[in-house]
């Protein structure tokens, strides 16, 4: 039975660095409090070397010109915490959410999957690094020892069974109180730490060596509990939790963004974090929801009549629905860029929220003898780009409607992969020769919208036609019809028409004379004549 603990040291700084990776090399201090009473609560190592320490005021910290100051962000910390849970969940289903900066996981049975405890610890560290977190990982035979070792030792620590006291003895006593406690608990912990300090107890070895009865008499059960922890002999059951399947990354901006280009950089960062989190849980996404909080001054005080209603409510949302589950940050970014180019927010952006709806990744294996099909990611980008050129509803696959109306169809999303999955084999081995035995089906080319025509009738039959197009006019050489169609008479869009197939003489290329066949329609409700299409 072994447990591993993942601890993120200096959590506020780590959360800020995860959100802004370019600050890794800079001196960073995190501020908390209401202006102008902001104080430094955490600093990174470089800032510490420059003399910046927690407790300083913002004005004091600003004396150092090279330091980057950031306000503490609950959004960033919750995202970092969710990423930490994802990291643990990707290795073990039994995960305890010990603290916002600490998680504990049960490694029982994991050896056959991931190797030895040391291998798992290294893999945990690498996975956390991939999620943008620099962590300490410790493995021990009991949960509390693993947590203490992770909080006390940097890097990776593996404590063999039975060696807990020996390994933990060098740790300072304050590691026992490293939990982020509430105010009253914190005061109590400070008093205990002070008492131990007065006794000359500075490390766990000294605490473990104290006589139990005397310790109990002075500190009560709390003291005994602390001694158990120091000896590495405590035992408790894990409190597993089911991490919610919520994948949200948010960022709040100090200065509003106006242009789409800087927005793309931030979106890229959020998408990479989201994809890393989804990837760690072996998931993909089929729906991305982008919510932008717009600058209320611009969105409310200035009236933009042409802007959509989302802007006026200072929230602008766009939803990207994908035909298939995908996990490619670059593709998502490009799709979002194209979408935002087509539908710009219309006001400066103050906050970005990106949520991904998790989905199981597609599992499709192409056959050796199946014809190639477009790559789904590439195809989606291509379709979005083409939609930007020709219009959103003008690219896709055709779906016929259950109606006799001549334009009884609608456009729907074209998805190559889904077809191969659902009906691939059947259509893949269809006999090509089957089409050879039939003659080609005469095609109709539709004029959209139909061409208005002036028709001369004789005995109720068209004999001459005049149309705006020069090549579609003249005497009717041959005709067949009328074929009467009607429908939807129970709705407002009722239609009723007579169709004629007619032959007209027209001028082909180089002045030669040719005959063309057209479909002529008499709208019985409106009374007009239209050339609806040409047989070709």
């Amino acid at each position, binding site marked *: 039975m072994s447990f591993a603990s993942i601890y993120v040291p200096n959590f506020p700084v780590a959360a800020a660095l995860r959100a802004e990776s370019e600050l890794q090399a800079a001196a960073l201090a995190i501020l908390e409090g209401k202006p102008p009473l902001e104080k430094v609560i955490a600093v990174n190592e470089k800032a510490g070397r420059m003399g910046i320490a927690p407790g300083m005021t913002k004005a004091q910290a600003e004396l150092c010109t090279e330091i980057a100051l950031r306000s503490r962000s609950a959004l960033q910390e919750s995202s970092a915490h969710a990423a930490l849970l994802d990291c643990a969940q990707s290795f073990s289903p039994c995960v305890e959410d010990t603290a916002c900066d600490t998680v504990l996981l049960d490694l029982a049975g994991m050896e056959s999957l991931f190797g030895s405890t040391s291998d798992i610890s290294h893999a945990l560290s690498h996975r956390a690094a991939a999620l943008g977190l620099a962590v300490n990982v410790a493995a021990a035979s009991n949960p509390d020892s693993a947590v203490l070792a992770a909080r006390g030792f940097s890097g990776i620590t593996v404590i063999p069974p039975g060696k807990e006291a020996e390994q933990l003895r060098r740790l300072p006593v304050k590691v026992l109180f490293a939990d982020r406690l509430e105010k009253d608990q914190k005061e109590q912990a400070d008093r205990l730490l002070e008492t131990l300090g007065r006794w000359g107890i500075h490390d766990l070895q000294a605490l473990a060596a104290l006589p139990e009865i005397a310790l109990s008499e002075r500190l009560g059960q709390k003291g005994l509990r602390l001694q158990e922890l120091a000896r590495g002999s405590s035992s408790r059951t894990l409190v597993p939790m089911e991490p919610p399947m919520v994948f949200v990354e948010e960022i709040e901006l100090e200065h509003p963004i106006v242009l789409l280009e800087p927005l793309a950089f931030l979106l890229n960062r959020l998408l990479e974090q989201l994809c890393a989190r989804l990837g760690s849980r072996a998931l993909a996404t089929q729906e991305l929801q982008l919510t932008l909080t717009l600058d209320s001054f611009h969105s409310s005080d200035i009236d933009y009549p042409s802007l959509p209603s989302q802007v006026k409510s200072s929230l602008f949302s766009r939803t990207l629905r994908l035909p298939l589950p995908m996990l490619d940050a670059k593709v998502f970014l490009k799709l979002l860029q194209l979408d935002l180019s087509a539908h710009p927010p219309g006001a400066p952006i103050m906050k970005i929220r990106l949520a991904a709806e998790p989905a199981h990744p597609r599992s499709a294996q192409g056959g050796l003898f199946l*014809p*190639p099909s*477009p*790559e789904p990611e590439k*195809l989606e980008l291509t379709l979005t780009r*083409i939609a930007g*050129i*020709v*219009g959103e509803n*003008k*690219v*896709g*696959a*055709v*779906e*016929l409607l259950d109606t006799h109306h*001549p*334009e009884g*169809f609608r456009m729907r999303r074209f998805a190559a992969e889904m*077809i191969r999955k659902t009906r691939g084999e059947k259509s893949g081995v*269809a006999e*090509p*020769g*089957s*089409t*050879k035995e039939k*003659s080609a*089906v*005469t*095609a*109709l*080319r*539709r*004029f959209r*919208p*139909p*061409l208005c025509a002036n028709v001369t009738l004789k005995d109720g*039959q068209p004999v001459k036609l005049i149309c705006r197009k020069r090549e579609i006019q003249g005497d009717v*050489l*041959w005709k*067949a*019809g009328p*074929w009467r169609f009607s429908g*939807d008479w129970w709705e407002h*869009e009722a*239609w009723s028409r007579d169709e004629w*197939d007619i*032959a007209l003489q027209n001028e*082909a*290329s180089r002045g030669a*004379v*040719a005959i*063309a*066949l057209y479909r002529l*329609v008499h709208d019985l409700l*409106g009374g007009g004549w239209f050339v609806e*299409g*040409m*047989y*070709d």
Partner: protein
Amino acid sequence: MSSAVISTSAASGRPFLFDAETVPETGSVPTNSPILEYSKAHAGSAVLDGMEHGPKACWRHLQSAINQQRIPPASITPASRLEIRPALEMVSSGVPAIDALTGGLPRGCLTEICGSASSGRTTVLLAALASATCRGEFCALVDASDALDPQSIATGVDLDRLLWVRCGENLTSKNNSREIPRQLHSRNDRPAEHRLEQVLRATDLLLESGGFGVIALDLADLPPQTARRIPLTTWFRFRRAVEHKPTILLSVEQQPIAGSCSSLLLQLRPARENLLNFDDPHSQEQLSLCDSILPTHADLLTGFEIKAELALSRLNRKPAYSVMFPTRTAWAG
């Protein structure tokens, strides 16, 4: 003044295969002779003035050029080691008569289908799409005039495998109005050039995306003068993009516009066209598909006959000839 062109590869895009075995009389030239490398390296551009025609004369002049140190003598690759273009894969066009005429449609090439109104261009195009979707391939139709009739393709084409790009003016939210417009509409609110630009951009993207068995450009309703504005470089780019890929690039138009970029050119016309003489009332009777004595509702358009002529083929050197084949309407059974 005579000249010898070392390479004539404009049509194929490949260097001229200057094989050492074709000049045996020079004898002393090794197979890795600099001449061969020179012919390869300068393929497409080298014109040696003052040469006599014929390979032997050419060889002599090249040898003298080496002696005069005008040709770098290093790194010559014999023609036998040069890459030989693999035979093109031909697939069924969906019309047996056209398959017999052309051997099918070549993959990795541009095929043009030309003809006037009611010449059967769209019928052949849809037959090719039906055949491709039947093979399990995905197809794309870039429709310059938004003229496709979904009911026409429903019988043969697998609709799930056809990507339809409808160029033209942007439609309103209700994309397919179910009412016949009751006022006179302008057919094209935007100029044809705009639609043409949409076609070219969409085709570029589709070619770049890859994975399609057939990419068809329907330019049949564009005026020839507009279609001819497509630069030849664009056709070269398209041809280059599909080369060595299993994609058939089809272009349907009124007149040939791709020039030397197309590997196959099919000219279609109605088979009855040459029989018509509109001054002769007897010929007009021939035109009628049924006896004109019958009432008009007793007539039925059951199809028409198409004459397909192989106007150009860079795939084989067979003499041009034509075939005729019938089409049938969907309701003819």
